[in-house]
């Protein structure tokens, strides 16, 4: 993609500068999300962003879009109400891995199960950044955080696997190194009729990177580049070669499943028909 084609997203931004540390990947994810809106040419007032609590949750504060930042972990449950209240809105949730998979884990699996037409952009930095770098349900075993000074002993979730087994119908993953792909995947997720999860692998050089000696932002991005393998390419690779790799791209797409706001409308039609009899 040439520079000239990068969509202008300035109309979506407000209240900058942001509070994120230098080297933080959150801005890249937000940029990718905003470019997806521009690509889809969505009416600005018809987008609603519900954000989580934590570093990534702050994203909503910088957006010139309808949206709110409710309580920690509950963004998907709030977004479910927004979408049911006005199914015409494009509802996007911006939330972190701790927010979504730990305190909000229950809402995550149930949003997947309902297949409601909401797009979750899951910022995964493998830790809690805002509160000081504690371990999250995405922190790999053995890694150090401020609450795992001897190395993490908890198993970690794979958000993609969890989403798939819980019923999400569009699941993709990319990284902040692959910003253009990330933007395309978010656009596809928004266009998809049903619950979509786009896991955006990001970095926290300030806490997680420093504690695990992963280098600065540049080195951490380089690691993302090296670890990422597109799903297409992975199809031709053996299991051993895929160990420690990060599958990216569209990882699961199911078309034609009943979307939740439609299901609610079906119930209404059924009830009104029965009442008329």
């Amino acid at each position: 993609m040439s520079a000239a084609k990068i969509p202008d997203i300035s109309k979506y931004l407000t209240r900058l500068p942001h509070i994120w540390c230098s080297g933080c990947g959150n801005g890249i994810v937000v940029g990718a999300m905003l470019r997806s809106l521009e690509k889809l040419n969505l009416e600005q007032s018809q987008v609603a962003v519900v954000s989580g609590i934590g570093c990534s949750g702050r994203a909503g504060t910088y957006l010139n879009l309808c949206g709110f930042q409710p309580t920690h972990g509950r963004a998907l449950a709030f977004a479910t109400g927004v979408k049911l209240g006005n199914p015409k809105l494009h509802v996007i949730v911006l939330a972190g891995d701790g927010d979504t998979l730990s305190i909000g884990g229950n809402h995550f699996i149930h949003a997947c199960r309902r297949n409601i037409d909401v797009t979750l952009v899951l910022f995964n930095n493998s830790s809690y950044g805002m509160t000081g770098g504690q371990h999250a349900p995405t922190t790999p075993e053995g890694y150090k955080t401020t609450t795992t000074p001897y190395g993490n002993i908890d198993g970690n979730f794979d958000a993609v696997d969890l989403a798939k087994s819980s019923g999400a119908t569009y699941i993709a993953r990319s990284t902040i190194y692959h910003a253009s792909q990330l933007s395309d995947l978010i656009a596809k997720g928004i266009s998809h009729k049903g619950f979509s999860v786009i896991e955006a692998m990001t970095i926290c050089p300030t806490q997680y990177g420093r504690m695990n000696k992963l280098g600065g932002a540049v080195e951490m991005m380089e690691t993302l580049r090296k670890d990422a393998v597109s799903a297409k390419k992975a199809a031709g690779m053996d299991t051993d070669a895929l160990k420690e790799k990060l599958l990216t791209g569209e990882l699961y797409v199911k078309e034609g499943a009943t979307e939740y706001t439609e299901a609610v409308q079906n119930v209404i039609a059924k009830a009104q028909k029965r009442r008329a009899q």
Partner: protein
Amino acid sequence: MKRNDSIRVWTGNDACAEGAIAAGVNFFAGYPITPASEISEVLARRLPEEGRTFVQMEDEIASLSSVVGASFTGMKAMTATSGPGFSLMQENLGFAIEAEIPCVIVDVQRVGPASGVATHPSQGDIMQARWGTHGDHPIIALAPYSVRETYDLTIRAVNLAEKYRSPVLLLSDAVIGHMSENMVVPASDEIEIINRTKPKVSPEEYKPYLAVGGEVPPMASYGDGYIWHTTGIIHDETGFPCTSNPNMIDFQVRRLHDKIAFNRDDIVTVDMRQMDDAEIAVVAMGSVARSAVKAVKMARDRGIKAGLIRLVTIWPFPDEEIIQYTSQLKAFVVPELNLGQIQGQLRQTVEGRTKIVGVNRIDSKLITPEQILESIQNEVKA
């Protein structure tokens, strides 16, 4: 034989559900819990018939989350629960207060603490209703004492929520929720419906929290063309955080209180009976107020000048309405299904000017008129 079609024999929970429909509630999300489940069950059937939305969420936290989310889009949204579920809702209740999002939470109170006694009545959530969520905040709470009043107050709760951009609590209890009573269903043209005020300014000029001195800021619905943002972080009139501005934090939190306090006369309802010459006042609410009505009659039959102050609005507390009687009274008798939650607030209101005695039960049984009468008689003798 023909039945009178304006009369329904409903339980309190039925009346709550039907009141919600009459009030225009078009979004309900709930999670099963005794003794509130029937409100969900009735609305699961009735709301779709009316072309409106019912969902059962994964827990009470999600229930209130989606209720508040739906309200952002202009829906009149409600949930119903009981003590344990109400506890789970507290954080989101605080968000709805701070973000000023209209919604109604029905709490059909049961015996606590913890799982308590699920099928039996209590009034143990009076203080949870007031202070359950953290931080300094105002709240509106109403308590019905009959099936018909459950219907009426559900409508009123929805109206107050819309009018004041605030969550409103309806504190029912296991007796009121589960008993049936015959009631006249009012015709729809007899029912006052209040809708939230929408902005009159253009989207460019709109500030979602621009208000002073008890005003209620107009609220645009998401999707209406007004782009606005808010957060549970203390925010300024634009809805964006103002955490580095102590003056603005002070102004905005006080504004939330003023919004309710300046309008208290519109919100506070007290049912006063035979108070003009009363020497003993029984202060009661909910199912217990029915026992209190009887007790006051029994006392009058015995020549005792007893009266009733029935709290319909619990929060904000009807202090002005009560204070006017302090000098004429020998004592307040406060029967309640807890160990003195209303009594404690009353002490704060009365400031030692009048004697206050409690009649308290926490054994899962309703207070009887005889128990209240005994207390009244003791105070006459004292």
